[in-house]
């Protein structure tokens, strides 16, 4: 899936090639390759401990990858961090808003991290909040929001600087069913509206649509890379859930819902 030559308009939001990472003796990622084209929604599916968070940590440069490469819009994360990070938006699994500050203050702070001047940031913050349906609450403290609303603010924040690549790590963790569905629908909408390439990491099979592009990660390895129907065929299963359980086995699928 990795193109040998890069055409002028970079078609891939994210490319991961031959990525291996270990913590001491523990092999967290083993020769992982995947690609997210612009305007595509790719599910990174795997049980807890599969290596999803490690992949996110490397893509966001919490630490550097030693072997293999990660490209965001064609820019190597390690060699051209500025160009790569400029095009990247991330929603982390853990909450990352300042609860004492207002929604608007949180977004202006984030904009400043991308060199966007204050006055312009205010304008874009209002626009981003309107997009996630929270425009009226811009002046309220984050503390006053529900879990689902806070997630929507985090998504608004991740999109504020108009990234081409959006990574979400278990973005629906801790949300009730209705909020989960609205967050998921919103992100899927972005893909078609803005041609953003989305990598959606989850361990919940029911967040995957039958036709979705799926990368199945288990114990640091890519077990499957393709569309839903092909996954069903490979596992000789009738539902994605059964296919997932068959491929990752009982040990890894214990917490699948």
């Amino acid at each position: 899936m990795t193109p040998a030559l890069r055409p002028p308009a970079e078609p891939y939001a994210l490319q991961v090639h031959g990525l291996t990472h270990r913590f001491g003796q523990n092999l967290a990622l083993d020769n992982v390759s995947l690609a997210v084209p612009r305007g595509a929604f790719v599910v990174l599916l795997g049980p807890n401990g599969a290596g999803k968070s490690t992949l996110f940590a490397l893509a966001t440069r919490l630490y550097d990858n030693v072997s293999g490469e990660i490209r965001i819009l064609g820019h190597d994360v390690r060699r051209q961090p500025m160009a790569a990070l400029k095009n990247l938006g991330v929603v982390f699994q853990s909450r990352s808003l300042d609860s004492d500050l207002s929604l608007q203050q949180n977004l202006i702070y984030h904009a400043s991290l991308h060199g966007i001047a204050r006055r312009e940031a205010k304008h874009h913050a209002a626009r981003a909040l309107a997009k996630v349906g929270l425009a009226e609450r811009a002046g309220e403290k984050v503390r006053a929001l529900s879990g689902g609303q806070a997630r929507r603010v985090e998504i608004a924040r991740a999109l504020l600087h108009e990234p081409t690549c959006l990574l979400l790590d278990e973005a629906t963790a801790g949300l009730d069913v209705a909020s989960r569905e609205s967050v998921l629908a919103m992100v899927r909408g972005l893909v078609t509206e803005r041609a953003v390439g989305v990598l959606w990491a989850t361990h919940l099979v029911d967040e995957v649509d039958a036709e979705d592009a799926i990368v199945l990660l288990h114990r640091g390895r890519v077990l499957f890379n393709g569309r839903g129907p092909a996954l069903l065929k490979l596992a000789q299963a009738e539902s994605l859930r059964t296919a997932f359980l068959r491929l990752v086995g009982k040990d890894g699928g214990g917490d699948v819902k």
Partner: protein
Amino acid sequence: MSVEVIAHRFGLAGYATCFAGIAWREVLRFLHQRERFLAALVRPLVWLFIFAAGFRQVLGVSIIPPYQTYVLYEVFVTPGLVGMIQLFNAMQTSLSMVHDRETGVMRTLLLSPFPRSFLLISKLAGGVFVSLLQVYVFLLIAYFWEIELPIIGYFTVLPALLICGLMLGAIALFMSSVIKQLENFAGVMNFVIFPMFFASSALYPLWRIKEANPLLYEICRANPFTHAVELIRFAMYGQLEPVALAVVLAFTAVFLTAAIYAYNPSKGMLARRGEAG
């Protein structure tokens, strides 16, 4: 939907925006934490109102520069208490950075396209601005306690506070990054703040320590906090202590480099810490 073009600025103006944004957040957060502001003020004031008043009878301070006359113990101890404010604040800022690292807050900061070293320095500078707020409110209260500096001193102390704050912040950040035991504040109090504060010229002039214990005197002289206090003390009277300045600058450079190294994604402690998932 039309997509507006966003003006990313990564030139000088972009750096300035980023720096201002990070510093602004630090100050804003501090102003929201009223308990922290109160604690930061009460601590040195207790020392000033109670400890210094009692100690005044025990310890006579002779005429040593920058003082031109006999001074009350309260006056002598004021620069030390200003240093203490900055020391506590530095430890709190750095400790919160270590805690934040585990959560999304620090990772959000590190997602900025600007260089890591610049982000960390901006973050430390934000902490220094917070300490300036604390120091000037303290000096204002001290003024009504009849600890009056020459007017010029309130201005000349500013650059000294900036650089001392940066040095203490860098030391604190480095230590809290590499020493795991310092992850709670009790450990920091016992192993960092108390030794640095007591083995310094904050509470007593060094010549008195020399009479009492020559070894302790040498320890005090090697303590960067001593030099921070002396730099602040002289600056309060519009004077420059060159040795203190040189030592503070050197410590700032060394620990800033070390702290930046600790946050380097491929080399520092981030790389060594594994995480599940």
